[in-house]
């Protein structure tokens, strides 16, 4: 009886304290987004460098990159006059996260129409 109670207490304790492994690798993504929105602290080129590093680190660690990273990087490329790289990363976002297809296609169509 005692043993059962102890086992239960320990089992519940473990469940309660379990730290779940993150689903995605974020690296510098949030800091890059915040910097972009504030419009100060780093140039667009520096933000691109940081996000490229983040993607490389995710690959090196075998972790899936967080949703939005490729899309955001694509936008930075478009804004720095590199639509080829912009499209590459938009396509990667679509491929990894089909939930983004409608929005990204809307942006690509608007970009080409403009």
């Amino acid at each position: 009886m005692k043993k059962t109670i102890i086992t239960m207490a320990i089992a519940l304790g473990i469940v309660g304290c379990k730290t779940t492994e993150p689903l995605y690798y974020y690296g510098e993504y949030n800091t890059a987004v915040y910097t972009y929105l504030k419009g100060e602290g780093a140039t667009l080129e520096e933000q691109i460098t940081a996000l490229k590093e983040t993607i490389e680190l995710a690959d090196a660690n075998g972790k899936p990159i967080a949703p939005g990273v490729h899309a955001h990087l694509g936008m930075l490329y478009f804004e720095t006059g590199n639509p080829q790289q912009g499209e590459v990363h938009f396509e990667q976002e679509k491929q990894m996260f089909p939930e983004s297809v409608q929005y990204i296609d809307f942006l690509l169509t608007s970009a080409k129409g403009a």
Partner: protein
Amino acid sequence: MLFRSFIVVGAMALLSACVSLPPAHDYSAFKAANPASVIILPPINNTPEVIAPYSVMTQMATPIAESGFYVFPVAMVNQTFNNNGLTVASDIHAVAPTKLKEIFGADAALYVSIEDYGTSYVVISSETRVTVTASLVDLASGQMLWTGTANASSAEQQNANSGGLVGMLVQAAVNQIFETVTDRGFDIAAIASARLLSAESYNGLLYGPRSPSYGQPVASEKK
């Protein structure tokens, strides 16, 4: 003797985890709508701190993604609104849900308002506090699926319940490029956002389709 102390410690740990919880959310509409993707709309800022919306909308993406939903890239979404002449959050919040669905293809939108953001000075110590309120709305029906409010403060003691999550979010390494960019409010906003939204939080979101825990009950559904 040793056994007994084990039991006592175990029982204490269980009790401390169950102190005075608010009533559990009703998740039935959330489950019926079963959203897979979430767009975070630019937050309404009820504070004098102009950077608060940037900080909060940035930090809210992680707990929603980690709960298993696709989160639309917040800065890109903000730009899309700006490019279409919508630069004021309250105007964006007034856009019809069906119109948002048409452009973004999102299943649900998160409407956020910021009630506290920043540092107040109390005699000898200073406190950075962030309080946020949010509602998740189904964009097909316009129905509210979930709502909640949470706060975080630099002054609070990091207890055993929040320590793991807080530590994980704040300890993110910052490289040289961004060394000067982050601030205390940004860190506290991460904690408030995780408390509010994470499916691991009491009365947080449900697990989304991309989570290995999708379909499993969340904390406040467990008896």
